[in-house]
Each structure stands twice: as structure tokens, then as C-alpha cells.
């Protein structure tokens, strides 16, 4: 029966969501609960001269008011990715000396109701001395820029470089063509639909703290809170991330609120709840991207790529968030080879501090920034050389025969067949017909463009040794446990965390196939450190390749034990029994009719009446899986857009996506991930911008200003796949969650630039708002 893997099963988690029974943190209510609210800075940069909390404290219904002086006992927010030489500035949960971005934290209120807490915030008087601010990543590193932290004298927290500079310079000297671009990869705000929230309860009886929080990685959060922040011993701290309403990277870091809520719960002796408003999310959730890059590509006359060189200023915001320093280093420069055979690459970057909200992983995290640089350069090169964007890519693809392929920037791509992906994408999109239709449209003066994006991701972080060598403070394995109950029902535990990805279904599909049990007999448990002692969580498209592989390993152990018991009871040697995973039975070779069912064997393990010598009762196994390499999903997306020449507005008319994500567990879920990812990447290309004024005011302060994509912005997206299994994990899977986002951004920008190519427009920085496009058209028509 099983063979669940590869089938589009309906999701096991959905009945609760479609009936309004989702278990989000904000839904939790505890007896005696109080409500926490944070007083945040209206200034981008200011010295705190005085804080007067007297009026707030006097407001009826206020339980307590605390400032940074009270929270001095709470530790500093740490960096979890320390590249060599990094300077990590002090970051207190409540600031005491200065505020360094709009939304920085100066005081907190605990009150009987959230309404009273909000009223009390207005009664806190903070005397600020405003200071000059800097918001631009590159300007922050210039001499004379306002300094944020005394401990970082040039605002440069870290630098990183990779590749062979000499080889690159020689290649550029010898090249027939050099194309150069300066690109801004704009600031984004993740905007998971569920705002962050936390509830904490301290038990003086057991001296245990329970924290419910909107985290993508509750186990990591527990480690960080215990080791660095609130001093509750790890074994006395339980962190629960129940249903989480989207993350996209913004729920990876350990946040000051996740320390303040439990700290306050202990102080006031009552449960404390904090739920961010959307405006508060905009000024406190880690934001994404924000690079300024100068990039050059060297080519031969025939379009063969010889070398790539980039310099990037990466904006970290005002403080270094948990994995901030990973994103523009080992998740960015290492990806600059794209899908191409590029003999020489050199990348260098400066990670700067600015008076903006901090920046960390956002869907794709470094890899979209790399793909954008590469794919824009390749398109500009194609235009310069008069090549079709498809042909220049085909010419430079790493041939399928060359895998595993060692790039000049550290990564070894495990597998791929890019020609195959391209062929399928051309077919799915009807590329030849699109080009023919474009030629007709151009004759009519219409601005129709076709864009190609060919992208790779290093997903499934990460081999722990590699992470450690590159600055990671933790490893990046995953845990997977299988508990078989006496009745044959199965509890599966993973250290990964689902916040929309559908693990309750896909992980069950994997385990059901591994054990040969009915999927309805399997329940996935995740997101509770009391049940799952160790785990790394979900980000970087790692859950199936790392977490799923851990479950395969623990299932192998379960099967091995089941076979021992079966062999004993069937009076055969273990080598002679067969585990029939389709039927969930074990039998002696050649005698399938005398099989023991999985349920019988599980019960036998439980009763222990008749176990072989040396076999312990019970049937539960744990495994940890440390990946041998990243996986390398790859995509070719092709889109058609039309630009309204009068207004500059861009309409997406067609979109075809072909992705190679290796083996597929649930095609419906994979398609959903790709579609959703595409929408997010399109959002960056066309609409979204976490914009600041020069003096650091956040313009995109709420959803009236920050343009999250709407349903009407898209046509139906055609998706298809090729399947090149990853050779190094037992499932053959590659990452899928971020691929759509990575590929769609350059695809759409390339399409718009293709539409404008007849006018001579070479590049417009994202988002491609109507005004920017219109201005580029006007400028081109004038020149």
C-alpha cells in the first residue's frame, strides 16, 4: 500500500486551519495573564538623556514599567555567525545609552490589558538628543559618516572575500568584452502574515520557564536565551513554537522580545503576553536584502564567460542579528558562479552598520542577491553581444557530464542537468512563439518583454564542519525520532519546524513509506523543546533534505529492530527476512504468506514477551543527520511582461517555471512552494521596498505603504519539473522553499529590461515602480 512519496496527498494539517483552529501564539490565553508593550524610539539615532516613567506607573491597570536600567541583568543579544574579525556591537534588550534605529527599544510596560499597556506607553517621557543618521550601506563606510557604535569605529562590522583576485584580473585584461553594472538589491520586509508574538509563564514551584513564541527554530532559541540572555538553565526552559503563520527568515533570530517576555513574567510573577502590531513588526522584525553591488563580467567575443568580479556593501542595520553575517558572506559570494562555468570569480564585501532596522535572512538569504547579480550581468552581456538570453546561458551552462562540479567560489555542486531544465522551460513557456509574438507587438510599438532567469541555490544548510569553519556557532544537523506505540501508531518528532511548509504531511509520507504503515497512523510532533530535545529548525530550504533524512535514518533503525524481532519469531536469520515496505510486513524470503505485520511486531516490542537475546523492549529510535553537502536545486523561469509606455506600469502576462528540486515528496506542496516563492520574488522586482528617508525614518511603516503582492498582480503560473536527484541524501531531495523567490526576481527584471531594450534602457533598480520605469523611458527618449 504505502508508496506515499511522490503523491499529492491533501495536507494533514489543514482541517484545523480551515476551521479557525490554528494554534498561533497570539491565540493563547492563560489565567492571570498580563500584557507587555514596548516603548520604541521615534528617532533613527539619538542619545537617551532621560526616561521618566512616573506617569505610566501611576496609570491604573499598569503592573510594572521597566527601562534598560532594570534589564541590565539580561545579557546581550549575540551573533551566531562570526566571520573572522567581526566586530559585534553590544545590543541590549532595552537600550540605555543610545537608540540606533526607529523602533529601537527604550522601555517596557506590563499591564492588565493591551489597551492599558498602549496607553501607558504614551505616558512614558523620553528625553532624546537627536544625532545625525546614516541609512545607506556604502555611505556608512565612508569617512565622516555618523558612527553608531564606539566599538565599530568605521561602521564596518565585518568584511569577507573569496576567489582568486589575480586570475580574475588577468581574465578581465584578456577579455573581448567587459560589462559592468551597479545594482541595488533593495531593503525588504518579510511580512509573514502572522506578526511575531510571545507568551511566557514562570513556575516558581518547578522553577521552570515556558515560552511560547513565533519561532522557526525553537530549540535554537532556547539555547540562545539560556546561554546568553535570561539565565534560565536550558533544561528548565521550555520553548514552544506552535502553529506559526509564516516566517520567511524573519522568525529565525532570537529577538529581544523573546528575552523580555519571560524576564518580565518572572519579575511580575504572572504570565506575560506580547503580540506585535504590524507597524511594530515593520520596525522590529529583521529585514532582508539591502545590498549595493558593483559587478563586472568578462567575456569572449562569442559570449563565453571568462570571469566575474563583484564588490558589495551589505547593510546590516543598527545591530548584528543572529545569522546576519552569514547571509552576505557564505550564502552570497559562494553562489556567484550561478549555473555557469566561470573560470575565475572574485567577490568581496563590507558588512556595515546603519541607522535602520536590523537585517538578517529573508527567503533565499544571500542566494537571491547572488542570482540577481549574475542574471542581470548575463542579460546585459547578451544584449551587448547581440545574443539571445537563452543562447548565452546555454553556451555557458555547466554541462551535465561535469558534475560534481567544483566552482571557483568554494562550493561543489552535487548534481544538475541545466540543459534539460532549459529545454523544458523553453517548451513550457512556448519561448519561440513568445519571441515571434514579441516581434509583432514591437512592430505595433508595444513594449513587450520576455525575461529569462536561470538560478541556483545552495540549500539544506549545512555540513556542520563547513559551517563551523566559516563562522557558524552551532552545527546544522537535524534530529529525527520515531516512537512506535504499542498499538502500532507512530509519533514522529523532528527538530525542523513547519510554518506553512506542510511537514505534517510530507514527513508523514516519508516515514509511512519507510515503515510501510498507513499515513493516518502517523502524527508529526515538532516545535516543543520539552518533546524534541535537539533541533535546528527550518530555514534555508533544509527541512526535507536534512530533517527528512534524519527521519529516514531513524526509520532504518526501527526497521532493523523490527526485523530482528520478526526473524526471532519466525525462527529465521535476520539476513533471511524481508521487510515489505509496501505492505508493512516482515516475512522470511520465499514465504510471504507467513508474514508478521508491523502492528504485530510493534506490539511484540511493547510486551517484550518474546524478544531475541539482547534486544531491548520498546520501539523508538533517534537519529541525527549531518548533511555531506548542500543540495543544489536549480531553476529556469521565463516570463512575459508588457509595459504601459504612458504610465510605466508593468503587467505580467505569462509566467513559466521549471525547477529541478531533485526527488519530490508531494508535488502539490512543491508547486505551492514554487508559486508562493515566485510571488515573493515578483514582489521584490515590482512592488516591495522597505524604504527609509535619509534621516532614517521608515517610510514603509505599515501595510498602507509596504506593497505586499495582491492576487490581481499575477497570471496563472505554469510549473513543471525535471528531477535530478541529489546523490548525497537518502531521499534524493533538494531544497524547494526558496527557489521560486530566487528565480523570479531576475526573471521579471530581465523581462522588463527586455521590453525596454528597443528604447536603449539598460538597467533600472528595483522595485520597478511605474514612475521609475516611466522616467527611464522618458530619459531614453530624450537621448
Amino acid at each position, binding site marked *: 500500500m504505502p508508496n506515499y512519496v511522490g503523491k499529492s496527498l491533501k495536507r494533514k494539517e489543514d482541517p484545523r486551519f480551515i476551521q479557525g483552529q490554528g494554534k498561533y501564539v497570539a491565540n493563547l490565553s492563560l489565567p492571570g495573564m498580563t500584557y507587555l508593550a514596548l516603548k520604541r524610539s521615534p528617532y533613527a539615532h539619538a542619545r537617551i538623556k532621560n526616561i521618566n516613567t512616573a506617569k505610566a506607573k501611576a496609570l491604573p491597570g499598569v503592573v510594572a514599567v521597566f527601562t534598560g536600567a532594570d534589564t541590565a541583568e539580561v545579557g546581550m543579544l549575540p551573533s551566531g555567525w562570526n566571520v573572522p574579525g567581526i566586530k559585534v556591537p553590544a545590543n541590549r534588550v532595552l537600550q540605555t545609552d543610545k537608540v540606533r534605529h526607529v523602533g529601537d527599544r527604550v522601555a517596557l510596560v506590563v499591564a492588565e490589558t493591551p489597551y492599558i499597556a*498602549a496607553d501607558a506607553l*504614551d505616558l512614558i517621557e523620553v528625553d532624546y538628543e537627536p544625532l545625525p543618521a546614516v541609512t545607506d550601506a556604502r555611505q556608512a563606510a565612508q569617512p565622516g559618516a555618523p558612527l553608531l557604535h564606539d566599538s565599530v569605529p568605521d561602521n564596518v562590522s565585518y568584511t569577507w572575500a573569496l576567489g582568486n583576485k589575480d586570475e580574475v584580473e588577468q581574465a578581465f585584461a584578456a577579455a573581448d568584452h567587459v560589462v559592468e553594472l551597479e545594482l541595488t538589491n533593495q531593503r525588504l520586509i518579510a511580512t509573514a502574515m502572522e506578526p511575531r508574538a510571545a507568551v511566557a509563564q514562570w513556575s516558581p514551584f518547578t522553577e521552570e520557564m515556558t515560552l511560547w513564541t513565533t519561532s522557526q527554530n525553537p530549540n535554537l532559541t532556547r539555547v540562545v536565551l539560556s546561554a546568553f540572555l535570561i539565565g534560565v538553565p536550558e533544561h528548565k526552559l521550555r520553548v514552544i513554537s506552535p502553529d506559526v503563520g509564516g516566517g520567511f527568515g524573519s522568525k529565525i533570530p532570537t529577538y529581544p522580545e523573546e528575552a523580555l517576555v519571560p524576564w518580565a513574567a518572572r519579575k511580575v510573577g504572572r504570565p506575560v503576553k506580547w503580540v506585535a502590531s504590524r507597524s511594530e513588526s515593520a520596525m522590529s522584525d529583521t529585514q532582508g536584502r539591502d545590498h549595493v553591488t558593483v559587478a563586472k563580467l568578462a567575456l569572449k567575443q562569442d559570449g563565453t564567460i571568462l570571469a566575474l568580479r563583484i564588490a558589495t556593501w551589505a547593510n546590516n542595520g543598527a545591530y548584528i542579528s543572529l545569522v546576519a553575517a552569514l547571509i552576505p558572506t557564505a550564502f552570497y559570494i559562494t553562489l556567484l558562479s550561478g549555473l555557469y562555468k566561470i573560470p575565475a570569480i572574485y567577490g568581496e564585501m563590507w558588512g556595515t552598520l546603519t541607522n535602520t532596522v536590523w537585517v538578517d535572512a529573508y527567503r533565499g538569504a544571500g542566494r537571491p542577491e547572488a542570482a540577481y547579480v549574475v542574471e542581470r550581468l548575463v542579460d546585459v552581456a547578451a544584449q551587448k553581444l547581440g545574443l539571445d538570453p537563452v543562447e548565452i546561458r546555454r553556451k555557458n551552462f555547466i554541462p551535465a557530464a561535469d558534475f560534481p562540479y567544483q566552482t571557483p567560489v568554494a562550493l561543489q555542486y552535487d548534481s544538475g542537468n541545466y540543459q534539460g531544465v532549459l529545454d523544458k522551460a523553453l517548451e513550457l513557456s512556448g519561448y519561440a512563439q513568445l519571441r515571434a509574438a514579441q516581434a509583432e507587438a514591437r512592430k505595433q510599438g508595444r513594449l513587450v518583454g520576455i525575461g529569462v532567469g536561470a538560478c541556483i541555490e545552495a540549500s539544506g544548510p549545512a555540513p556542520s564542519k563547513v559551517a563551523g569553519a566559516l563562522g557558524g556557532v552551532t552545527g546544522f544537523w537535524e534530529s529525527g525520532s520515531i516512537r512506535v506505540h504499542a498499538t502500532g501508531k507512530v509519533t514522529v518528532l523532528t527538530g525542523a519546524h513547519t510554518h506553512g511548509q506542510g511537514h505534517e504531511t510530507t514527513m508523514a509520507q516519508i516515514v509511512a513509506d519507510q515503515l510501510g504503515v498507513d499515513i493516518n497512523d502517523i502524527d508529526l510532533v515538532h516545535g516543543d523543546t520539552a518533546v524534541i530535545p535537539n533541533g535546528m529548525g527550518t530555514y534555508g530550504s533544509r527541512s526535507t533534505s536534512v530533517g527528512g533524512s534524519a527521519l529516514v535514518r531513524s526509520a532504518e533503525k526501527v526497521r532493523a529492530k523490527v526485523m530482528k524481532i520478526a526473524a526471532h519469531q519466525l525462527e529465521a536469520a535476520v539476513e533471511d527476512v524481508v521487510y515489505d515496505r509496501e505492505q508493512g510486513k516482515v516475512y522470511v524470503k520465499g514465504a510471504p504468506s507467513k508474514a508478521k505485520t508491523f502492528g504485530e511486531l510493534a506490539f511484540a516490542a511493547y510486551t517484550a514477551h518474546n524478544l531475541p537475546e539482547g534486544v531491548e523492549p520498546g520501539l523508538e529510535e533517534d537519529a541525527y543527520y549531518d548533511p555531506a553537502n548542500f543540495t543544489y536545486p536549480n531553476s529556469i523561469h521565463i516570463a512575459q511582461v508588457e509595459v504601459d509606455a504612458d*504610465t510605466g506600469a508593468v503587467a505580467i502576462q505569462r509566467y513559466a517555471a521549471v525547477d529541478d528540486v531533485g526527488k519530490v515528496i508531494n508535488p502539490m506542496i512543491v508547486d505551492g512552494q514554487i508559486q508562493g516563492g515566485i510571488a515573493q520574488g515578483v514582489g521584490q522586482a515590482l512592488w516591495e521596498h522597505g524604504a527609509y528617508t535619509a534621516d532614517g525614518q521608515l517610510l514603509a511603516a505599515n501595510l*498602507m505603504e509596504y*506593497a*505586499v503582492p495582491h492576487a490581481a498582480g499575477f497570471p496563472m503560473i505554469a510549473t513543471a519539473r525535471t528531477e535530478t536527484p541529489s546523490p548525497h541524501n537518502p531521499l534524493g531531495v533538494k531544497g524547494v522553499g526558496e527557489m521560486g523567490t530566487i528565480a523570479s526576481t531576475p526573471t521579471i527584471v530581465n523581462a522588463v529590461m527586455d521590453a525596454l531594450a528597443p528604447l536603449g534602457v539598460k538597467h533600472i533598480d528595483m522595485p520597478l515602480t511605474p514612475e521609475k520605469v516611466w522616467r527611464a523611458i522618458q530619459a531614453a527618449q530624450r537621448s
Partner: protein
Amino acid sequence: MYTTAFDYYRPQSLAEALTLLRAHPDAKVLAGGHSLLPAMKLRVSQPVALVDIGRLPGLAGITAAGGALKIGALTTHAAVAASDVVRAQCALLAQTAAQIGDQQVRNRGTLGGSLAHADPAADYPTTILALDATLHAAGPGGERTVPASAFFTGLLSTALQADELLIAVSVPVYGRGTGGAYLKHPHPASGYAVAGAAARVTVAGGKVTQVSLAIGGVTVNPVRAAAAERALAGQAPSDAAIVAAAAKAAEALRDPLSDNYASGDYRIHLATVLAKRALTQAAARAQA
């Protein structure tokens, strides 16, 4: 987000509402609440009292009288958009209503609330200006009417006195020979009009005999594009005549609004594009 505290009154009659407004000069009027409550939640607006007129009898509904439709101030955008009589006799208003906000907002937001709030990026003000509508206000001294051209008096301000309520709007009906169109460039996040153009065109004997064109979103209040109207009046509604007229819409747009999404220059440009398209559609409908 949480509003500041306030007192709440729900009068049962217009007279009681007016009395309450006199008694609480700092009170705000709550109709559908879809402009007021978001501002209160962000604590941009902190009224000490709300007078909820949402259920006052007789203020919702559409009646036809003497070449005009009288639309009660509490009529929701959804009701206007779906009204057969409005669609048949003043389609421009129904088209405008259908483009406001989103379905949920249209289900609660009201004609009177939108006009009295006078947001520069709202849709209705532009259209009622193009329609030469008449606004009916009730105050302590009884009722009075205000022409749309005199109603908007600045950013978020109107000719209504603090103790007055907008109770209805009369719009002229039109039939064969006249066409209308409202077009907007919505902000990609808020949906509000970055620029909007409302056009009403009458064509007779192959000539434009009457034209009105209003532009919203660009300036603090919507304005009539008088130069554009003059340029088109008396002309055959050809593409060339419309393009020439629409270009003159910019003349009416002084001190344009500007923000991160759209500069003043771009808003003016958008206005001319939308004017051209709205006039074209209106003229085509007039001749259909």
C-alpha cells in the same frame, strides 16, 4: 493597535445626533468608520468621543427625484456600486464606488463618510466634483446644500461645520448621449488613488456639447480641469482633440502631493494619462 479611550454615543435620530455634536464639540462622527478607525488605531486621531450615526434612520438609500439621484450619506460603497438605478442613471458614480478600497471596505464604508473625511487620495470626491453634485448638510439651523465645487476646503477639510452632518448627496442622472468614466492609478499597497480622473462627456451631433473632468489624488483636494474642459467643448471627440484637451489637465494641478511612491511631477503626468483615457471612455460611452 489600540485606540485611545473615548466615549461613545449612538443617537436614534438626526436631531439627537445634532444635539450630541453640539454638546461634544470635540467629538468625531462615526459612520462606516473606515477612514476614522484606522487613524485612531495608529493614534494619529485621538477623539474624546464618537457619535455613531451608522444607524440613523433615513440616511441610507437611493431615491430618484427631478433629474437627480439623492443618495443617503450612509449608503455603502457596495450598495452604490451594485445599485441598478445608479448603474443605469449615473454609471460614473457606480464605477467609482466599485473601485474604492476592497470588498470588505466597500461593505462598510459610506458615501458620506468618504466625502466628509475628504482624503486627497479618495475616489468619491473626484467623481462628485465631475458630476457637479450637490451635498446636503443638516445642522442646528436646519438643512442647507453645498455644491461639490465648494465642499472641499483643504487637506482633510470640508465646508461642513463642526455641528453639521452630511446627510445626502444629489447627483444628476444622465442617459443616452452622455458617458462617464472614472479611472485611477491605485497605490500598490493602500489601493488609494495616486491619481484619479473622472470624466463626464455629452456628445450631440458629433460634437462634445458638455464635458466635465475632475482630477483627484494629485492635489490636497480634487480639482476641475477647466482648461481641458474648455479645450474639448465644441470639438468632435476625436483622439487628437482628447489628447490635446487632456494635456491641459496639468494646468489645474498646482502644488502636487509627493511621496516615496510617486513624485508630484509623475502624479501630474499620470493625471493627464488618466484624463485622456477617461475622456476617451466617456466619449465612447456617450456615443454608444
